[in-house]
C-alpha cells in the first residue's frame, strides 16, 4: 500500500436545504492517527464528520460545497460515486446498529454479503475472524457466531459494528460518538480498540466527552456556533495536549474549562 496521505478539507460549506450548517472548514487530517472533534451540541461536528464519507447526503436536501481530498482525490468531484467513497471511508454510529435479521457472522461480513460479492466460506471465515479480532470481540463471540447480532450487549454490539466496518478494509474510520450509549467498562474497551486501530486506519471521532478526546486522540478540533440559526465553525485544531493545556482561542479555553457548553 502506498504511503497514506492526509485528508485535505478546503473551504467546506455544508447545507441542509437553504440552511448553512457549517461554514468554511479548512483542515488537514493526519493519516494513521486519531483526530477528535469536540464542541457544544448543534455546532456541526457530526455534520462535518458525515461529509467525510458523503453520508450527510442521505438526509433529504443536504449537500456540501468545497473540497475534501482523500488520497489526493476530491470526493466531491462530479465523477465520484458516493458508494465508492463509503467503501473507503467507513463509519461507526452513535447507536450500535447491527442488522437485526443477521447472525453475528453475517453482520461482520455484511459489507461483502449486501454487495452481492461472492466469497468462499473459508475466505469469509478468515475475514470474519480477522475483523472480530481487530475489534477485540473474537473471544467473546467465537462460540456463538450463528446467534443473532442483536443478542449481544450494547458494548459488544458497538464492537460488532466496528468489526463490520473494518471488514470492508477502509482507509478511514469515522466514529460519531461511539461510546455515548455505553457504560465505562465498554467505553474503555472501545477506547483501547481505537488505540490499536490507528496503527492501520485514519480515525476521526466525534465526542462530547472531553476526557475521552484527551485520552484517545492525537489531535483535537474544536467546533463552535455563534448562536442558534448561525453556521458552525471549526474554531481551532491542534495537538490534543496543546488544545487541552494551552489553547490559542479564547472560545476553546472557555469550553474546555467548562465555562460554557
Amino acid at each position, binding site marked *: 500500500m502506498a504511503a497514506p496521505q492526509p485528508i485535505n478539507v478546503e473551504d467546506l460549506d455544508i447545507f441542509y436545504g437553504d440552511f448553512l450548517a457549517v461554514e468554511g472548514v479548512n483542515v488537514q487530517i493526519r493519516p494513521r492517527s486519531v483526530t477528535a472533534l469536540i464542541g457544544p451540541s448543534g455546532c456541526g461536528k457530526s455534520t462535518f464528520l458525515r461529509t467525510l464519507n458523503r*453520508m450527510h447526503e442521505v438526509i433529504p*436536501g443536504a449537500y456540501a460545497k468545497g473540497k475534501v481530498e482523500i488520497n489526493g482525490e476530491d470526493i466531491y468531484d462530479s465523477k465520484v460515486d458516493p458508494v465508492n467513497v463509503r467503501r473507503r471511508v467507513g*463509519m461507526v*454510529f452513535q447507536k450500535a446498529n447491527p442488522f*437485526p435479521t443477521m447472525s453475528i457472522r453475517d453482520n461482520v461480513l455484511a459489507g461483502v454479503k449486501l454487495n452481492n460479492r461472492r466469497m468462499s466460506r473459508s475466505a469469509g471465515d478468515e475475514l470474519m475472524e480477522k475483523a472480530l479480532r481487530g475489534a477485540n470481540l473474537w473471544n467473546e463471540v467465537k462460540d456463538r457466531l450463528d446467534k443473532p447480532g442483536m443478542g449481544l450487549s450494547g458494548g459488544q454490539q458497538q464492537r460488532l459494528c466496528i468489526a*463490520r466496518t473494518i471488514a470492508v478494509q477502509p482507509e478511514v474510520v469515522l466514529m460519531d460518538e461511539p461510546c455515548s450509549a455505553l457504560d465505562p467498562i465498554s467505553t474503555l474497551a472501545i477506547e483501547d480498540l481505537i488505540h490499536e486501530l490507528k496503527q492501520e486506519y485514519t480515525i476521526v471521532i466525534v465526542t462530547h466527552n472531553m476526557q475521552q478526546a484527551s485520552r484517545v486522540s492525537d489531535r483535537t478540533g474544536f467546533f463552535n456556533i455563534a448562536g442558534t440559526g448561525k453556521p458552525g465553525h471549526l474554531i481551532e485544531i491542534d495537538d490534543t495536549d496543546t488544545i487541552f493545556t494551552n489553547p490559542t482561542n479564547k472560545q476553546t479555553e472557555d469550553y474546555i474549562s467548562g465555562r460554557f457548553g
Partner: protein
Amino acid sequence: MSSMTSAPTEASVHRPHDERRLPWYHLIFTGLTGLLVAIAGLAIVDALSIASAIVVGFLLHLLFGWVYSLVREGPRWAMDRLVTLLVIGAFAVAMFPLLSLLWEVIRRGLTRVLAAKPSVLSFWTSDMSGIIGGADAGGVLHATVGTLLITLWASIISIPIGLFTAIFLVEYADQGWKKTLGTGVTFLVDVMTGIPSIVAGLFGLAVFITLMPDASVRMGIMGAVALSLLMIPTVVRNSEEMLRLVPMDLREASYALGVPKWLTIVKVVLRTAIAGLTTGITLAIARVIGETAPLLLTVGMVTSMNWNMFDGRMATLPTFINQQYRAGSANCMSDSVTNPITHEVYACSISTNIDRAWAAAFTLIVIVMVLNIVARLISHYFSPKLSR
C-alpha cells in the same frame, strides 16, 4: 377508606397495600347479585330474555362491584375493579360477534359438508353441473378453483404494483418533484381505498368492453383486474407503514458499508420488514377474496369448472353463496331429482340450496384461515431475531 383519601400518613404508607385486597371470588358474589337483581327487575317489567339479563346484569355488576369494593377496599381499588370489569366487558363485546359468527358458519356449513355423498370430501370435489332443483348433491370445486385463480391473478397484479409504489413513497419521494409526486400518489391511494367495490367492478367491465368491443365479454381476468383495483391501495398503505418502521439507522449502516441504495432496499429494508409486509399483503388478499359485487359483474357465474382465466365465465365462492342463498328453499314436488346430464338420481332436500351457501361460506373462511396461518409462519420464520 378515609386513610386512603387523606394525605398519606406514616401508617398508610407503611401498611402493606394489598392487605385489604379481597380475593377474586368476591366478584362472583357481586356478579350473581347483579344478575339476580337484573332477572327480577326485568321479569317485573316483562322484558326478560337471556340477552337483556346478561347486559343489565353486567351493568349492575359494575355498579355493585364498585360500591362493594369502595366500602371494603377503598376508592383506589374500587376504581381498579371498575376499570378492569369495563375492559373485560369491552373484550367480551368485541369477541361475541366473532365467535358466534364462526360458530354459526361452522355449524351450518358442516351440515352440507357431512351430508355430501359418497364421501365427506365430495362437497369439495364436485361441481354443480346438472344439479337442479333440490338435488341432495353438488359442490364447490369449480367455485373454489375460481376464487383461488382470480385471487391469485389479482395478487400477481397488485403485489408488485403496490409494493413498488410503497418503496417509491418511503425510499425515493423525499424531496423536489418526487416529493410532490409522492404526495399526489398518497392522496390518490387514499381516494382509491374508499372506492366502493361495485365501482371497481364496473371499471373492470368497462376496461375490457372497450378493449374488445363486445358488451357480453366475461373472463376471470376481468375479475382479477377489478379486484386488484381494490387490493392495490391496501397493499400500498400496509407496506408503506411497514417500510417506515424500518429504522433509518439500518439504512445508514448499510450505506456506510458502501452498499448502493437499491441493494440496501432489497437486502436490508425489505428483508427487515418482511414479516410486516407478509401480514399486510395477507390482509389485502383477505379483503378481496370475499368480494362479491365486482365478480358478479365481471366474471358472472357458471355451474361447471372453468380453468381458463382468459375465456368465459367463472364461478367464485362469494357469488356462489349469493346465488345459492337467493335460490332459497327448494320446491320438492317429488322425492327425487334426476341429473339431466348424467341421469343420476338424487334425493330431494328442501334446505339443500341454503345449506350449500353456508358450506361455501365455511369453505371461504377455511381458505382465509389457511392463508393467515401461512402468513403467520412466514413472519415467524423471517422476523428479526432478538433472543440470545
